[in-house]
């Protein structure tokens, strides 16, 4: 493992749960690695796979998709749809020679600031084991 390697994670968080959970982690002064760049969505179900793929092709080491727990979606079922899309995406990435472990889906509620911090910490550690995204310096995509 390269100790100097700091993974870059793109986070796609739903407005109602995971984004609020991340906010709670911050306001609660919970420490977690600063490796995640957050993009706020209204719902995890609003995330088209094109953005996840774009992030990976541009060299992001990991993508963390955060939504409300099953049954808690602000829009009733967006997270269930997101779950199907992530299942399809991971299946395709795996078959096409990508590492599907770079794409995480996690249900993190607005009250789970600690769990949010733990998730980012855990993901950073896993990505350090995995190493940098091999596409980082590849322009032929």
């Amino acid at each position: 493992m390269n100790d100097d390697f700091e993974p870059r994670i793109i986070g796609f968080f739903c407005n109602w749960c995971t984004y609020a959970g991340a906010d709670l982690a911050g306001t609660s002064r919970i420490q977690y690695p600063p490796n995640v760049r957050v993009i706020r969505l209204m719902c995890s179900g609003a995330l088209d796979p094109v953005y996840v793929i774009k992030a990976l092709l541009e060299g992001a080491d990991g993508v963390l998709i955060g939504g409300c727990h099953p049954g808690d979606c602000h829009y009733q079922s967006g997270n269930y749809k997101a779950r199907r899309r992530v299942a399809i995406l991971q299946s395709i990435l795996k078959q096409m020679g990508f590492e599907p472990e770079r794409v995480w889906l996690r249900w993190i509620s607005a009250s789970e600031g600690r769990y949010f911090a733990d998730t980012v910490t855990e993901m950073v550690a896993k990505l350090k084991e995995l190493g940098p995204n091999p596409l980082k310096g590849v322009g032929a995509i």
Partner: protein
Amino acid sequence: MSVTAYLEVAEGDTLGTLQRFLGQLLTADIVDALLVPQKLPTGDNVVPTLIRDPAKLAGVDPIAPVMPVIAAQAVSNVTATEHGERLAAVLRSCELRAVIELVKLQQASLEDVILIGVDCLGTYEVRDYARLIEAGVDPTTEVLAVAAEGQLDLLAADLESAAKGYQIRAACRMCEKPVPGGPDVYRPDITIGFLGVDPSHQILIEASDTLAEKLGLEAAEGPSASRRGEPVEPSGQAPVRRKEIIERLIAERTAERDRVFAAFRERVTGMDNLLAEFSTCIRCYNCMGACPICYCKECIFRTPTFDHASPQYFRWAERKGSIRLPTDTLLFHLTRLNHMATSCVGCGMCESACPSELPVALIFRAVGQETQAIFDYHPGRSLEEEVPVSTFREDELTELGEREG
């Protein structure tokens, strides 16, 4: 209930018999228009044609082994919005399956539409078909001869086309769903069959009771048992010989499919191989235009999102050291896969349309197979099974999204 009947072919004129049968749908006022493949005046291609006048049926050829466009797109064109007409569409299995997907995606309607499926042994690339015609070969006659012999391989050495080195499209060689109403294929209102019958004498027609009555079709005991002397199943059933031949065809195609899928999976391991696979893509979007499932009127790749400002290219080149142009080729294919792989019917039109001859049909089918399996989904099988990306179940994929371990 459906009725199995046989059309007697007069003087070996199979096409003429088929044309008269289809014309009956118009003359008996069962439909207002027919959507059928019809030969171009030049004779070297066969294209979907919407016919209202029964006098315009000359040159109709649902057997010609060529598919310049997938007629599912034509069905979508003529049925997507209110039209008040009664239509019958003659379709190959892949076209039929694509229509079913488009109906579920609300891009086509089966209101007042009679779907007619026709057996398919595969299609040649358009240019190969034209060359065969130029060389004096009649591919339709060859297909009928092969069907009559129970020989299923259009590559069979004793065919003139094969002797000249032509073979059917790669997608057709691995098509394990060649028969309408066969395993995991939607059962159309009418099936026109020539596999397992001698099409120089007879054509098999399966139709619903009501349609059979309107068309004056009578349930037969079998394909003139006295002529062939072969076993037949009870009245109204397709003959045993047809069943056997279809099973053999499916087995051969399945073996070919598994062979090329395995080769693909061996080849595409790791990023470098993936990049090599798509390296000659010129991002022309032909595959998208030819795909019956890619129906979006405004694809994100054709929006200003991908009209990058000039400085952006320099920034990318700076960050990565160099970038290949056109950009976003892999992004395009991976995104397209995510959007339509679960509904891919394997028609292979993407590959036929590709100027760089990328094996896109193989890639999409191989990847589609696994993504479809996640949801046990079979594109084009049934109108009741929902398209995976438009629905969900609360009790599925429950580990996804939960903390591991």
